[in-house]
């Protein structure tokens, strides 16, 4: 491409490097300045991603940006299509709102001299998220997955209470296992294709599949990469670290982790499916069926765990297990509709889950920092904003029309009906069961926080002052929820376009 490119096309690269620079520069400075820098950077990134998104939509084609002067297959590349830019925009928005919403608690929970380090982690996490979303190169993917993991681990353990340390350790172990599988899969993939850039590897891959060469290693590679990323994103049997990790870290961390980090691996997986291995090959190797089964198991077991949970954070965390199950179930349906549903659910869950975490934090703030349900009795009257936020989030998760959760359930159901015959019934049944379980645990919490019976004396006249930033964050998350619920059609269309651009 020898023609001078539009300046907008620099934005993905800029946003990635900008975050890194911000992280680097936050090392020697005070926490407050670091906070300002971070917020500024996140806002900038949001704007740039949005601009790129509009640009890509207007041109209608994805573009490739060579990182350096050497084109593929020799140099690194990043690639921005509709889907990538949309995800980048939403992710940075959610990141911004999670930070704003939890800012007070960041300053409360973290020792004062380490706050700037927290923001370093946030910056690098955002950069790695963007890089994972945009990357067009497998090994870049691996490197930034590692950054992502370490940053996430840091965000869990920065609050040095016992549980968060243990949670961080378990999270680290799980992720390292995932990375190991992913890395060896990558090495083998390079061994048989000789390429690390996605397009070229894809070409060679198709050739190999046609000639029927290396069928056994191919199968092993696919399964290793898939299982590795699935482990890292906390698919059902590997979810054990989730409740503590989300439940005991500071609220911004938990909302960022649950809504963005675990999703980024899924996105990388989807990219690899489409852009490296080819979705047909994936379908032919029965690996997606495995994902499907574990996804279904996760949908049910996560909800059961949430019902058994005695503390609101653990409940929300377990419900994330269930939601990740939904996403993998959608991928496992082997249809494009299922994939669209999965990606839409990623957006839905990103928004709703961060909203829920912020709301839960607000609620247990006015309940003497107690997390167990009995203390939250009637807390919605003590902190109305958080109450409304929790209500909206729960209704969305339960799937009331006009909220985003309903649309993703609708998409899942319709996709399931379009899927292979033996998958239809089981999917619908599990979807119904898990929805009812969702309703049970979310609604009983809603009833509890809205029934001021036997409110403990010490909480009777607690009234928390919600900071402007938090209010703004919660409000805009609620709005995004409604937008996804009411204007879903263009978004799903764009997702379809983006998936089409993948191939």
């Amino acid at each position: 491409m020898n023609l001078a490119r539009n300046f907008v096309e620099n934005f993905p690269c800029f946003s990635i490097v900008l975050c890194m620079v911000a992280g680097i520069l936050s090392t020697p400075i005070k926490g407050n300045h670091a906070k300002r820098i971070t917020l500024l950077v996140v806002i900038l990134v949001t704007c740039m991603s949005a601009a790129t998104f509009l640009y890509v939509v207007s041109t209608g084609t994805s573009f490739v940006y060579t990182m350096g002067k050497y084109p593929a297959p020799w140099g690194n590349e990043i690639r921005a299509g509709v889907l990538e830019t949309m995800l980048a925009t939403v992710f940075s928005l959610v990141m911004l709102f999670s930070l704003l919403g939890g800012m007070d608690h960041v300053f409360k929970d973290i020792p004062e001299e380490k706050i700037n380090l927290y923001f370093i982690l946030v910056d690098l996490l955002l950069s790695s998220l963007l890089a994972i979303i945009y990357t067009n190169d497998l090994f870049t993917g691996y490197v930034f997955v590692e950054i992502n993991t370490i940053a996430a681990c840091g965000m869990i353990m920065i609050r040095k209470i016992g549980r968060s340390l243990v949670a961080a350790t378990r999270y680290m172990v799980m992720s390292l296992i995932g990375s190991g599988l992913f890395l060896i899969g990558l090495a083998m993939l390079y061994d048989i294709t000789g390429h690390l850039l996605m397009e070229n590897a894809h070409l060679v891959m198709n050739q190999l599949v046609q000639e029927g060469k290396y069928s056994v290693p191919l199968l092993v590679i696919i399964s290793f990469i898939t299982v590795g990323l699935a482990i890292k994103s906390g698919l059902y049997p590997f979810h054990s670290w989730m409740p503590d990790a989300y439940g005991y870290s500071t609220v911004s961390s938990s909302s960022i982790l649950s809504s963005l980090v675990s999703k980024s691996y899924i996105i990388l997986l989807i990219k690899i499916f489409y852009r490296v291995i080819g979705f047909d090959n994936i379908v032919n190797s029965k690996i997606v069926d495995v994902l499907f089964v574990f996804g279904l198991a996760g949908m049910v077991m996560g909800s059961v765990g949430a019902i058994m949970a005695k503390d609101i954070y653990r409940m929300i965390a377990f419900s994330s297990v269930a939601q990740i199950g939904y996403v993998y179930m959608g991928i496992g349906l082997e249809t494009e509709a299922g994939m669209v549903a999965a990606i839409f659910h990623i957006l839905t869950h990103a928004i709703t889950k961060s909203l829920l975490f912020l709301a839960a934090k607000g609620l247990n703030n006015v309940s003497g920092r107690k997390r167990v349900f009995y203390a939250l009795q009637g807390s919605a009257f003590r902190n109305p904003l958080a109450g409304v936020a929790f209500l909206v989030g729960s209704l969305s998760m339960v799937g009331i029309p006009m909220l985003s959760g309903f649309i993703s359930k609708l998409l899942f159901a319709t996709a399931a009906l379009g899927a292979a015959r033996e998958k239809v019934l089981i999917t619908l049944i599990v979807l119904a069961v898990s929805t009812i379980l969702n309703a049970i645990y979310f609604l009983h919490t809603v009833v509890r926080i809205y029934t001021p019976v036997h409110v403990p004396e010490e909480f009777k006249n607690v009234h928390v002052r919600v900071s402007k930033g938090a209010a703004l964050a919660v409000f805009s998350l609620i709005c995004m929820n409604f937008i996804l619920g009411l204007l879903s059609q263009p978004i799903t269309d764009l997702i379809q376009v983006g998936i089409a651009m993948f191939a």
Partner: protein
Amino acid sequence: MTAMYLFLAAMLLPMLSGLFLLFFQGKLKNRTLKCILIFLVMALTAGLTVRLMCFEDYQLVLWHLTDKLDILVRMDNMTRLFAGMTVTAWTLGGVFAFEYMKHEEKEDRYFGFYLIVMGVLIGLDHAGNLITLYLFFELMTLSSLPLVLHTLTHDAVMAGLKYLFYSVAGAFLALFGIFYLYAHGAGLPFCEGGYLMVLDAYSGSGKMTLLVLMLMIVGFGTKAGMFPLHGWLPTAHPVAPAPASAVLSGIITKSGVLAIIRVVFYTVGADVLRGSWVQYTWMTLALITVFMGSMMAYKEQVLKKRLAYSTVSQVSYILFGLSVLNQDGMVGALSHFVFHSVVKDCLFLVAGVIIYKTGKKTVKELTGIGKEMPITMWCFTLVSITLVGIPPTSGFISKWYLAEGSLQTGIGGYAWFGPVVLLLSAMLTAGYLLPISIQSFFPGEGYHYQELRKKEPNLLMLIPMLLFTAAAVVFGMFPGRFLGFLQMTAADVIR
């Protein structure tokens, strides 16, 4: 276009004023003024609804949820019937509550949610396709929950949770039916007689469709207290304030009926079900519920709970009338819907008056109460007779049509079995209602007339009861035009 604005006004006016009331709880000190305002809101809503009913049949898209899926409102005879009944009963119940709620605290909260539910119900009655129906159905469940757990005692909260979970579980059973039908192109607006037969997508997956329909019937039947999932009714009604339980059993249980009508007669069409195992199961469940409800009511001693059980059985009369899938059954069902709403509202109001004035809850305590509040107990007696179905009262007409419809089905056992069960249950109804009036008027010995003093409630409570009673009787005397309307409606949907 005017229709749309009118509809939005009729739906949003009560909702918004209810929200307003909730936000400014206890701010408005002058109670009379407040009651007048609330009454004005309800009356205005009723007026708007009536005005809407005068329009020709129409269909309006409020919002495009997705390309294939709209939030759709529609006006047809079914809407007229249900919306009309809703606003009438709701307004009268509200008037009654003005007096009754004096002895409950937090009445602002009650009235706020009362108004919100009114708006939601208007939306529900106007719903034009399954998704819209489902939306308002869920909203109704959630917004009527505070009415149930109003008193916030432990029992109330538990009952509320029970109500919530039964309804939500039922609604989700239905929801996945809705998704299924939607995938088969049934996101389309309702049309008389349904259209699933003509959809080519339907061919092939017949078994699945029937299963899904069964699920939807059971799911929506939860709201109507049909057998396997009827448990919430007898728990929720006694704990709710009397006017709330009146509209709960008078109107909200009927919304389940409306949903089933919309699914069966307006979406899939009766022919899909006719003669299938679904119809038989449905009839069986309905009959079981009819009989069982009456039995339970007969055994029950707490008045409101007895009335709740009787609701269980009576609403299943309606479901049975629908399940026979022919015109007479339909007419019977619809008329029974109206009559039972009137009657059961009145009965619960009477129970409310008794609790309000004397605080007596169980049947035994009611001996001689007819001496203390004769008008009230006369209303009670009259509507009880109506409910039992003694000619010439209205109950008789509906049950007649029900029996006729069941006979017309010509399904071996059911044709005869149905009427028999209905008759038995009618006797049981007499058995559990009439003794109350008898012993209330003829306390026999042991009743000390000297300490008898009149406890008639004031007009705010009397007028609604009297109106309901009058309606119950008058409908029975001159059912002509009304039945004509119902037959027309039934003829539209069942060919």
